[in-house]
């Protein structure tokens, strides 16, 4: 609504309305359409903004995140895990790791959460077109990579080879395993590894870095890495040791955040702010590679 | 406090906090100063930067101990043998202050007799501190012109708490390090207005200003002023009240104002039984504490920002704190509550403001004689004794002479802890505070930032002990003593000595005082919080 066209509206009320629209700290409401259980700790939530017009306008890029609110528990940054091209809403994949996320686990379809965003720098989707992409993920780290995988698989003409090395603690802990066969059918080379062997497990046991040995790296290869900080650190080191340029290795980082828009200062990483300068960084850009 | 009262005649901090900055040697004992008295620690850090020497006596490698020139890491409860050894060294090297002892003290010969029996090697063995370190500390303390001693509950919360304090006073008198600016013996008071509560006579044996209820003259003065007759026998102490249990003659009713014995008192199971056994319990507090939850009537009180009144800090500084906001809902200040109850019980009390109450205090309390609200309005307080309107207050005590006349040496011998470690209970547990929390956590746990900084109860253990027991940092464990068991999260800390554990008592989900023992000092009635035998096991719940 354009308040300037309402002469009866007082200046202050107009300012208030303007302010409400510009208020970066004010969450929107999103309704949970569907909850998909990924493993004992992780669920994926399919969400739609309650405001129809806002929902219509809403768009995001792979790698961006939302600040989600739970009543009385504050906010936390969560990456998108659905394809940006999907028509109805978006998905967030959330691991039970604190008070807020524990409360999220108790929600049911139809419940409402608060969301602000999308925020942050996305993956450089243009640079990825036509490249051979090597995705390396650990645990819930596959979530922010999933939109990219879906996007690339949907545009086979502009996509080189796609490989995913995915490591998890146990075979039960893989997220998105319902997608695996479809992804394989669509041409993704998917290799899984677990930290702890289980009886029914035939695949490799060990860290995801173990899968990297002998992987062919050429000029057209780009790597996309996400997982626990310690895993990111070792994978980045190994990829560079294998001869990859730091600019071609891309990762996404996690930090404590309060505002999500570069003001509150919590996610400072040397001179960068993870919320606006990231969360997506190339290995060359990570300010503190020892401590990603 | 009783210890200092016997030796010096007054149980308060002898100096101001700022004087610490000018001391040449500071001896800190039983105080995790950076956590519990940050402003005192600040002066000590500044003094050390200016060249002062720091000696710390503490079983733990606390932050202040890590800053010390000499850290005497004693076994818990061995202050007396350590101090006797220090004094023996001072005597041997002839570093005593003859003139001071002659002019200002009494009972020196008895002290000497005791010191001459001290075996330094035996002392080293008991305390776990090398004889060389003891001698070095003795020299350092005795040789300086301006040495000062700060101690806290690590000294007093022992079965021999009073004797411990006396020993520190003995040391100060032996070397003449008292009665001057920049030197003295300073007990650091832990809570907001603990000094004031004592000064005001919230004690079983004294009226305001430490005027004994047993003294007929004094009782007469108060009877005339209050127009009533007063009981002569000193009453029960806090632990005697909360440990009445099922005894015949136990208390039948209690009025508790702003205290939380259900977390702060030793052997909580006994406290619970006692409070449950009451016919009537009334609690006035700002939050529904663990104690208030047991009450028959709970009265909502105003917090410090919602009322005007005076408080007295550790250095005897009486200060006026102003009302800033209205209490929430129907909450009212405690003075209103007391007046209402008293009036309804047939003893009318009608003060128009706390100013009027203070005027009565001035009238009846010599040490507060000149501390009127209007004098505090534009100043940051007056230090008692302040005898009349013209009196400027007293920054340091015992100038020219001790409050009791002569300072009295009180020779003391080692009293072993009431509950030493055994095979079954191989660890010695020390309890205390953490920096970000305060007392039973009623206020500090409701502060979002403080809760974030320290939100869970931790048990500190030496890494080697943990390795031996196969325990990892951060694991859930249970600490068990002869009286009960309490869950904690394990925190490995090389600042602990082997065989010793430390935990806080801020958290109701880990009520530390289920573990502690009721044995207390026979004079001061301080429970032995700094030393009880426990064992640690993995928590399977």
């Amino acid at each position: 609504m354009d308040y300037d066209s309402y002469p009866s509206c007082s200046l202050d009320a107009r300012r208030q309305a303007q302010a409400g629209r510009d208020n970066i700290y004010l969450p929107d409401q999103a309704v949970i359409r569907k909850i998909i259980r990924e493993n004992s700790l992780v669920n994926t939530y399919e969400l739609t903004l309650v405001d129809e017009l806002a929902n219509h306008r809403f768009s995001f890029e792979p790698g961006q995140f939302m600040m989600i609110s739970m009543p009385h528990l504050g906010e936390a940054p969560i990456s998108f895990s659905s394809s940006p091209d999907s028509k109805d809403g978006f998905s967030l994949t959330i691991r039970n790791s604190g008070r807020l996320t524990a409360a999220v686990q108790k929600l049911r379809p139809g419940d409402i959460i608060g969301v602000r965003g999308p925020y942050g720098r996305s993956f450089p989707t243009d640079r990825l077109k036509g490249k051979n992409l090597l995705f390396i993920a650990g645990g819930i780290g596959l979530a922010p990579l999933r939109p990219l995988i879906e996007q690339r698989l949907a545009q086979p003409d502009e996509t080189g080879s796609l490989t995913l090395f995915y490591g998890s603690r146990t075979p039960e802990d893989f997220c998105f395993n319902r997608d695996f066969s479809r992804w394989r059918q669509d041409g993704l080379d998917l290799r899984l590894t677990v930290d702890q062997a289980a009886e029914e497990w035939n695949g490799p046991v060990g860290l995801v870095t173990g899968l990297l040995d002998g992987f062919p790296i050429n000029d057209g290869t780009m790597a996309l890495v996400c997982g626990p900080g310690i895993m990111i650190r070792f994978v980045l080191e190994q990829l560079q040791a294998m001869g990859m340029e730091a600019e071609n290795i891309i990762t996404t980082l996690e930090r404590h955040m309060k505002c999500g828009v570069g003001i509150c200062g919590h996610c400072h990483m040397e001179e960068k702010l993870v919320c606006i300068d990231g969360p997506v960084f190339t290995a060359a850009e990570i300010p503190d590679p020892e401590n990603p | 406090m009783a210890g200092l009262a016997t030796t010096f005649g007054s149980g308060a901090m002898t100096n101001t906090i700022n004087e610490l900055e000018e001391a040449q040697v500071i001896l800190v004992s039983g105080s995790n100063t950076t956590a519990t008295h940050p402003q005192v620690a600040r002066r000590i850090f500044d003094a050390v930067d200016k060249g002062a020497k720091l000696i710390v006596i503490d079983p733990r490698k606390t932050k202040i101990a890590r800053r010390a020139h000499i850290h005497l890491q004693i076994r818990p409860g061995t202050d007396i043998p350590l101090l006797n050894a220090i004094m023996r060294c001072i005597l041997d090297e002839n570093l005593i202050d003859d003139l001071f002892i002659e002019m200002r003290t009494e009972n020196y010969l008895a002290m000497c007799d005791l010191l001459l029996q001290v075996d330094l090697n035996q002392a080293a063995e008991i305390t776990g501190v090398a004889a060389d370190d003891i001698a070095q500390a003795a020299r350092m303390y005795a040789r300086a012109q301006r040495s000062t001693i700060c101690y806290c509950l690590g000294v007093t919360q022992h079965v021999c708490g009073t004797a411990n304090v006396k020993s520190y006073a003995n040391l100060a008198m032996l070397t003449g390090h008292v009665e001057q600016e920049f030197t003295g013996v300073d007990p650091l008071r832990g809570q907001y207005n603990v000094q004031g509560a004592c000064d005001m006579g919230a004690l079983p044996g004294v009226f305001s200003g430490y005027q004994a209820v047993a003294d007929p003259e004094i009782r007469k003065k108060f009877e005339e002023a209050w127009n009533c007759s007063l009981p002569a026998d000193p009453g029960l102490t806090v632990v005697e009240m909360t440990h009445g249990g099922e005894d015949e003659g136990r208390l039948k009713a209690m009025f508790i104002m702003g205290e939380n014995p259900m977390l702060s008192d030793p052997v909580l199971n006994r406290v619970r039984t006692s409070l449950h056994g009451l016919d009537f319990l009334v609690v006035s507090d700002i939050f529904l504490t663990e104690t208030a939850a047991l009450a028959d009537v709970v009265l909502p009180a105003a917090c410090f920002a919602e009322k005007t009144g005076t408080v007295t800090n550790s250095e005897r500084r009486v200060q006026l704190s102003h009302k800033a906001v209205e209490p929430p809902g129907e909450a009212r200040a405690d003075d209103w509550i007391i007046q209402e109850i008293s009036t309804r019980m047939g003893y009318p009390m009608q003060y128009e403001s706390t100013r009027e109450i203070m005027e009565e205090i001035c009238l009846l309390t010599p040490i507060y004689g000149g501390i009127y609200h209007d004098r505090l309005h534009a100043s940051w307080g007056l230090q008692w004794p302040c005898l009349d309107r013209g009196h400027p207050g007293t920054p340091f005590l015992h100038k020219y002479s001790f409050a009791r006349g002569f300072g009295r040496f009180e020779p003391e011998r080692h009293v072993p802890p009431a509950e030493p470690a055994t095979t079954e209970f191989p660890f010695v547990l020390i309890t205390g505070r953490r920096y970000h929390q305060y007392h039973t956590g009623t206020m500090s746990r409701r502060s979002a930032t403080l809760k974030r900084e320290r939100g869970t109860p931790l048990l500190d253990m030496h890494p080697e002990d943990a390795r031996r027991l196969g325990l990892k940092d951060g694991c859930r464990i249970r600490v068990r003593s002869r009286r009960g068991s309490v869950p904690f999260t394990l925190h490995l800390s090389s600042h602990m000595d082997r065989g010793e554990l430390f935990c806080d008592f801020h958290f109701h989900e880990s009520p530390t005082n289920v573990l502690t023992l009721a044995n207390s000092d026979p004079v001061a009635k301080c429970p032995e919080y700094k030393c009880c035998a426990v064992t640690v096991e993995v928590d399977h719940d």
Partner: protein
Amino acid sequence: MIETQTLHKDYLLPLLRKLGKQYRLVGPVRNRFGDTLYIEIPDLDRVDIDLKQQPQNSLKSFFFPQTEALSSYIVDTEPASPTQLYSFHPLLPENRPTLYFGVRSCDLFAVLYMDMIFLGGKHRDIYYEQRRRGAVFVTLGCNEPFANCFCNATKNGPFLEFGFDLQLTDLGPAKNSYFVEAGKANGLNILKKWTRFFTDATKEDRQFQYQAALEARGLFRQLVHVDLACQELEKGNEPEEVLADFSQRCQDCGGCTFICPTCTCFSITDHQAKDQGSGERIRSWDGCTFAGFTRMAGDHNPIDLRRHRIRKRFFHKLKHDVQKHGRPSCVGCGRCVDMCFGGVDIIRFINAITEAGDLGRDKHRGL
């Protein structure tokens, strides 16, 4: 020339009284305890305006209060309700045009830094903007710097070249007046509107002002090589020993970040109301020296050691802000000096690393 005027000291109060009708007034006031603080002045006749001491607070809390409710929220507590309710309603501060007078150069410069943080990015902070919009600054140059000041070294004082609406310079006891420069339209408007209080500045006045500015630079008692420190850090030097020492000293009070006029980090927390069905989202000052500042869910903390936290604070001021904004974000006000529990302050840090740097060079020459 209207841009430079003089104001007789006798006219300061009458001028403020006039301005007080148009603006809320904020200025340095000495209270009964002898503390000087910037406070809101509802009645000019009942306060002791103090232009001699450094105010112990900065202007930070006027634009960015220590705690501030951002929004209220309501929640449907009925578990069986078909459409759950969870909505937010902004609690915007009122916008009150305010005239800040007697503002020191460091404090105004800090406001300019805050403007950059809160309003300079892609997303504007409207809470800050609400309090900030319409603010007029009448600054006062420091003829005599205070004991711990070093704004000459941070290059934002003792006199300002820009940023003020009006800048006053004390022309000394003989003249008993202020030299007044208008830096922005608001200042110029004041000069135009209240001409009767002002007199055109003479060439001599301008000379005197210039002289005062020169002399003030010689009166700093702290010699602090801020530029050298920035260079040392820019080279990538890690002052490990200094940080190790500081971490033994730091006692986690957070006071340095709270007192600092350019420390703007904050936290946001929800405060549930008694009825469970509503609450407030509150922002409050936070400090990078607290361990909880960077702790993530699941207790993982990328910056867990105290020395890394101290490093973060000093590096932010002296390195990262230089990289991002071209200048250190320390404004040399000296407020954090002498107030630290363990003697960790920015002067000590700068001295430690510049001395270490000098030592390094000496050694190098020796070889």
